[in-house]
């Protein structure tokens, strides 16, 4: 191989190496699984959603809360009924809580991580669940643990099963730790943002977009918290309601009045 070809091969290899990290994120299994554009979050309250049109709405329901306490994982399954039609696409959400809630540090041990993986995989056994979402406000010291958890999950999930996470909007504005996570989307939650509220809303209201590419596939909004920004309609939207979903709420979503 002459010098020019060697150089070209080297540059190609280097460029490929540079691009390889982003190509992991190009795939979106949620689209591959034909999830509709709007996903309603069904949280820990009785939800009767049999009126939903499965072509237009999917449901991400809180399946369980797993609490990291000391060196244990406390399993708190859903306690409120959920009724949906069998055609509706379902995403089982696992909420993980740790020291922010318990006030006590967690061991963040490999055994805990394995336990979490087992319990999260088990949530797929619920009827008609075709995707998984993790809801974990990981503190800085917990991020490495979370990253490894997501890697373990991705390895043990079937290749076609989507893995989604929720993300604080501030992560999506500029934190880099979301890069290279083996997930299909990070849903930026543009509600209940606490101290970041005005900053993020001003940021989005001025026409800016989330910096993290993985956050540009969806939005997370709440029906009672308006956000003045231009929404990209090609992105999936997840919607949270402060009360159980009623038909009128869904109609209002369709009309865009909430």
């Amino acid at each position, binding site marked *: 191989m002459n010098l020019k070809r060697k150089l070209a091969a080297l540059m190609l290899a280097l460029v490929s190496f540079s691009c390889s990290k982003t190509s992991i994120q190009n795939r979106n299994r949620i689209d591959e699984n034909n999830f509709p554009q709007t996903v309603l979050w069904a949280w820990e309250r009785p939800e009767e959603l049999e009126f939903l049109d499965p072509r237009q709405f999917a449901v991400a329901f809180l399946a369980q809360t797993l609490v990291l306490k000391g060196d244990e994982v406390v399993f708190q399954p*859903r306690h409120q009924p959920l009724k949906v039609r069998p055609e509706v696409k379902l995403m089982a959400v696992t909420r993980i809580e740790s020291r922010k809630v318990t006030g006590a540090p967690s061991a963040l041990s490999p055994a805990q991580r394995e336990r979490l993986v087992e319990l999260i995989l088990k949530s797929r056994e619920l009827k008609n669940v075709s995707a998984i979402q993790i809801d974990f406000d990981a503190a800085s010291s917990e991020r490495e643990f979370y990253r490894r958890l997501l890697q373990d999950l991705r390895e043990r999930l079937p290749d076609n099963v989507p893995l989604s996470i929720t993300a604080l909007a501030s992560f999506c*504005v500029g*934190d880099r730790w979301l890069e290279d996570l083996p997930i299909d989307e990070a849903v930026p939650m543009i509600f209940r943002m606490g101290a970041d509220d005005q900053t993020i809303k001003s940021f989005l209201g001025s026409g800016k977009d989330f910096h993290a590419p993985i956050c540009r596939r969806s939005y997370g909004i709440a029906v009672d918290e308006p956000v003045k920004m231009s929404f990209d309609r090609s992105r999936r939207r997840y919607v949270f309601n402060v009360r159980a979903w009623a038909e009128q709420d869904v109609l209002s979503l369709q009309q865009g009045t909430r």
Partner: protein
Amino acid sequence: MRFLHYILAVAVAAVMLLNSVPVVRACGPSYKEPIFVFKESPDLPFDEFTQGKIGILRPIMGRKTLVIAYRYLNGGTFSADEQDALVQALKGTAPEDDGSQALKTWINARKQFVKEDQKLPEIYTERPTGGYDFFPNCTKNAFEVAVDTLKDRATSYGAEDPNVKAWLAAQDTVFQNCSGEAQIPSELGAESPLWLRKDRDYQIAAAHFYSLNFDEARARFEKIAADDDSPWREIAEYLVARTLVRQASFAEPETKKRELYQRAETYLQNLATGSGKFSAASRKLLALVKYHLHPDERVVELGRMLTGGNDEHLRQDLIDYVWLLDRFEARILKAEEDRTKKQENPTQQETASESNIDKEPSNRFERFKRGETIGITIYLKKPDGTPDYSKPIEIEFKYDVSEADILAAFEQKLGRKLTAEETKEINEGRRYALSSRQWNVSPNRKWDNGGPSQYEGCNYADCTKLTFDLIPAFLRSDELSDWILSFQTEDPRAYRRALAKWHKTDSHAWLVAALVKADKSSLGLPEIMRAGEKVSRDEPAYATVAYHLIRLKMDLGNKVEARKLLDEILTSQSGLLPGSAQNQFLELRTQLARGLNEFLKSAQRKPIAFYEEGNLGKLSDMLEKEKQFWSPEYSEKPREQYAREVEEQYRDLLPWDNRFEFDDKTLEIFNWHFPLQTLAEAARNPIVPDYLQRTLVLAVWTRAILLNNDEVALAIAPEVPRVEPKMTAVFDAYLKARTVKERHNAALYVLLKFPNLSPFVQGGLRAFSTSEESEYYFEESWWCAPSDIDYNNQGQEVPKVVPKPSFLTPAQLDAARREHLALKAIGHGKSYLGRHVITWARTSPADARIPEALFIAARANESYKYGCDSWESDEKTQQQAAAILRRRYPQSPWTAKLAAESPN
């Protein structure tokens, strides 16, 4: 070859830059926010509140809080045990133990009777209902009884007895049903000992109970209950009722559910009145049955029990009462919402805001619901073949239109033939739509919007509000419910109701309600105010009554009387009031300040707690919590070293647990309406403690520098190193400057070296670092230009309004306004400083401080997530500063440092 190596080096460097992880920095501010008033709950800890120190009551407080307050307002009390239970209720702790500890105890107990290598059972206490939810199936008591029985049998017959082992094996089978399955232990024949057979009968019944075979379980428990020789007779009697209740909770339809609850009610009424071992448990279960069967009666019954006292299940009853009240309110409001919508005439009552809404989607939705039409949607494809969700093609059809006609309609809309994929998609869409229509027109479908869902309250601005005409008679017949709903409603008739009830009862509860609802034009105001004046200071109602008397006096223009009462309270009640109440009185006193001294005295408030990242409490509590965060897996330091470092971080913070601060409202008044001269006076006022003088002094000096007010700057300058010794060395050049230019440059350098300086008085516990200590990372450093915009509850922008203290003269207010405009024009601190550094560098290139100043200016104007405009920054200033540094001072270590830390 050298050329190749050069290319290689460049390429590798480029890849490394593209893929490099930036230096990890402390992410975002960690700021301990002082809290001065808890608006919706009692002050922490809750113990004082449950002991009767109820402070100033607010209608937005939670209902559990108001129930407790109501008893105290009416002269009642709670025992020490009851107070403990109420504290747990306020904390939201569930009354029932989750059973996890009891389960562990069982696992450990059985270990002694099995081989070491035998696998431990995995027991989950919750079982799926068959849908997506779980319920607690095996509770704490089940494991406790199992432990006690195992120990007893082992003691009686020996741990190695094969019958004891058989008992254990059967018990393991029972507990397998906790989280699923239907495993039933086998029946025993006459060859087994009697005790084992009796135990086995009970275990079999329990296994059926846990595997949801309720009829079988109940029949077996009834048999055991009739067996005088069974040691399980008494518990089995109780478990018959429990089986009925558990079965009822799963039963459908509603008629079947009610029938089972009624059977349970009859059964339990006998058990509850007896004196047996399970009579207390039976009464508790009966309460649950009443909750389901007779909610109207139950809420009234609970209201009376919670008011009267002597409630053996106080915590559970308080929870049940509030749940029922919330549920009734939600149903009332939902019914009213539906009724209003049906009655509305859109053409006459359409408001301006509604006229822009396209009603067609709503009308179409209604046609779908009625089954008249169906809607079919397809999505065109993007060039890469994936659906383009931003371009739906939707057509509405009559439900009985043929497949062929539907396809033709789409072809007409698209203006072309359909592809095979599109045809398939349309046909699938038709099938879904027809299936939906079948559901819509089904007679079994509930049209009641929301159905049995728990309506947890409405946060929308246009929500229906609870008014008196909506409250049903049975709720108004209960004094407690009547009071709570009247106290909390926004119905303008609430005042009249409270007044009438106070006339009738002469109770403090209704006097408080009337005063809270009153305004200066309220009928009968003088009378209730006179009554309020008679409430003595040791009465639980005093703080609320006094607060509103003062408020009303102020509204009526009686500032002298209001001030007098406030001063009496602040003197006599100091230390006796809850912190929130104390601070609310001080807030009123600030509004009545006649001069700077009075303002400053009442502006100092003691935080009742601090908040940081989900943690709420005293700083000393936060310290202890943070010391626990050490993790052997992730920490590089030994635990002792970690603890020492944390203690060092908190060393300067801990005194603030007992210090006063300025709250946000006071800070806004300082920053908006205090001109520089007045702020300087405040900074030197001996009423202000030295730790608060510090923040004023630093703000005054910085503001004076920015506004080019040398007179004020020089006058306050000697105070600066006194209040912040860290600044002494750098500040010395400013104090010793002989010319205006020298002084200006020295001031600029001081500002650069201490990035926490700001022309605005700041609150909270902020670190004061040098630029070096902050590692030249200037995320939230210096100041942001003041904003004139605020946001209302609907998230809409509104002009910011800060109340003006009445003691400031028009001249002072005008001076403050001009200064505000000048500070606004100066803009954000980083950009301002950067521009001035560039000018300084051009005019004084030989000044030894220039390279460092340029470095700071360049780093300050980089892009930061939490910058004044988020990621936006003054790129031009940043690039200019960096360019001057590189070009003019190529050998300076600051240039090398910039190159290393900011390669771009």
